């Protein structure tokens, strides 16, 4: 007989979101609570549904890139890459090397800026107000760089089928090299500030644990899966672009709790810096940045599936073409959507106060959950 049964108390349902300040977007959880303890949780999604997949069927291939920008609006480059990668795979295009390297540099910087945002909001979720300032300071350096390269801070529309839109500015390499030390320092500073803070440890250790097998069963990917001890990273197991030419580690966690999921991302930022440095060294100085592609690409009849590592996990794009200038069908396998499924088992038997921490540790982006 549980305490609740003995006291004949009733479980109550609590709505959390969609306007809750810390639900990371418009997301609603219906929490079934017994006192302070969460018995069950029912995630409700769809508040940001824009029908991107269906919309894509009516747009030209070059226009769809803009939709992908808005899908995962924190990892724009990575999401763009997933789409152009799928089309390139279908058309069997070889992208010029220089373009591939620039893509990798931008994607990895984007990963850092995305994780910086995660780092800041994770601090906020735990009640620490300072980390977000540090997170945003570093993020701002990277966003400025993106603005200098693509013209836009977030919706870049820079990757093209077969390469890039335009040549990056002449001082691109110098600028990237210039921001790297500051970013490295920022990562270390942030790490010292939050990672081993006693309060943060007490709030995150042993909370929202998910075992490796369970994580696989739920289809978790990315840092959330690696936190449970499964070293699965598309960049390493199935390299795309030029990722097979870099030497980097895949951080793996031990217990799969909230702290592990946090620490994975901090470590990943360091690895991303490492990749960017190698890419800068290997990048050809000059060369074409776009393959010969017709103004309006028409991939041949057929289908292709391309997967890439987004800051949040595996993003897959499944594309069916009927030979026209618009896709016949486009399906996205979004990482956050799959990761969100594991929220329920994670939240069972935790306290209401930890719900936000656990949700935050999954690092969801609602634009891509709802599409």
């Amino acid at each position, binding site marked *: 007989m549980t305490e609740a049964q003995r006291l004949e108390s009733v479980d109550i349902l609590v709505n959390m979101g969609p306007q809750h300040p810390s639900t990371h977007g418009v997301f609603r959880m219906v929490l079934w609570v017994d006192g302070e303890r969460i018995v069950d949780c029912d995630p409700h999604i769809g508040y940001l549904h824009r029908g991107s997949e269906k919309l894509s069927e009516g*747009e*030209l291939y*070059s*226009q769809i890139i*803009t*939709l992908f920008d808005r899908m995962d609006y924190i990892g724009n480059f990575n999401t763009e890459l997933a789409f152009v990668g799928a089309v390139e795979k279908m058309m069997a295009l070889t992208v010029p090397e220089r373009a591939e390297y620039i893509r990798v540099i931008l994607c990895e910087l984007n990963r850092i800026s995305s994780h910086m945002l995660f780092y800041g909001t994770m601090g906020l979720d735990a009640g620490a107000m*300072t980390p977000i300032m540090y997170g945003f*300071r570093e993020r*701002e350096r990277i966003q*400025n760089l993106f*603005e*200098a*390269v*693509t*013209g*836009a801070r977030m*919706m870049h*529309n820079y990757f093209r089928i077969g390469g890039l*839109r335009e040549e990056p*500015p002449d001082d691109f390499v110098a600028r990237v090299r210039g921001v790297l030390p500051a970013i490295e320092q920022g990562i270390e*500073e942030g790490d*010292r*500030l*939050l*990672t*081993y*803070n*006693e*309060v943060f440890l007490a709030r995150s250790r042993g909370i929202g644990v998910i075992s490796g097998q369970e994580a696989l069963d739920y289809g978790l990917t990315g840092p959330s899966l690696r936190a449970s001890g499964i070293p699965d990273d598309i960049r390493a197991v199935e390299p795309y672009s030029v990722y097979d030419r870099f030497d980097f580690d895949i951080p793996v966690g031990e217990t799969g709790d909230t702290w592990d999921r946090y620490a994975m991302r901090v470590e990943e930022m360091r690895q991303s810096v490492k990749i960017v440095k190698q890419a800068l060294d290997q990048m050809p100085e000059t060369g*074409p940045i776009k393959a*010969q592609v*017709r*103004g*309006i690409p028409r991939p041949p009849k057929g289908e292709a599936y391309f997967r890439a590592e987004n800051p949040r996990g595996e993003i897959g794009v499944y594309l069916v073409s009927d030979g026209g200038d618009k896709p016949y069908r486009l399906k996205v396998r979004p990482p956050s959507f799959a990761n969100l499924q594991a929220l329920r088992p994670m939240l069972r038997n935790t306290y209401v106060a930890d719900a936000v921490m656990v949700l935050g540790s999954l690092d969801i982006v609602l634009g891509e959950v709802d599409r």
Partner: protein
Amino acid sequence: MFSTLKGMLVTLSTTLRKPVTAQYPKQHLPLQERQWGFPALTWDGDVGEPYCVGCMVCVRMCPTQCMSGEMIDNPLHAEGKSTRRKIIGEFEINLGRCILCGICVEVCNFDAIEMSHEHEISHYQRNGRRTDLPLLLEMGKKFQRESNWLPPTKKKAAVAAAAKAAAAPAVEAGAEGEAATAEESSEKEAEA
């Protein structure tokens, strides 16, 4: 306890540094050279007319369908002052619907549209930012003045010429580029 102290040290060390925050409406940070604001139409100062010939490629390629326009016969061409046989008569971009994707700039073959640096143009009405030709040209003129604008095709030609002068292999690359643009434009015509 120890790591909390370490964290406090970090905070302490940054209190002595200069602030990185800018108080936005009062303080404006310099824009990047390539910064994208809303699209604007450019002005051909030599002839005294817009570059835009109203070919409607951008209108067709805009993903949000926020542009509309109309092509008319160019009166200046009749007088022999301009090489443009047709010219834009009416043009409107609903900037409230523009998503700043830059596709219109990319597809224009006449250097007629550019992403200006205009970005602070909010409005109380949902349709309050339907921007017509004179205003778009005004935005474009301002942008051209402030950024020492050169028509992109001229710039590209200058770069290609420099490359040609530099080395023989570069010539091939230039020729390839020209072939690509030729193909693209022929495709656009085919679509029209």
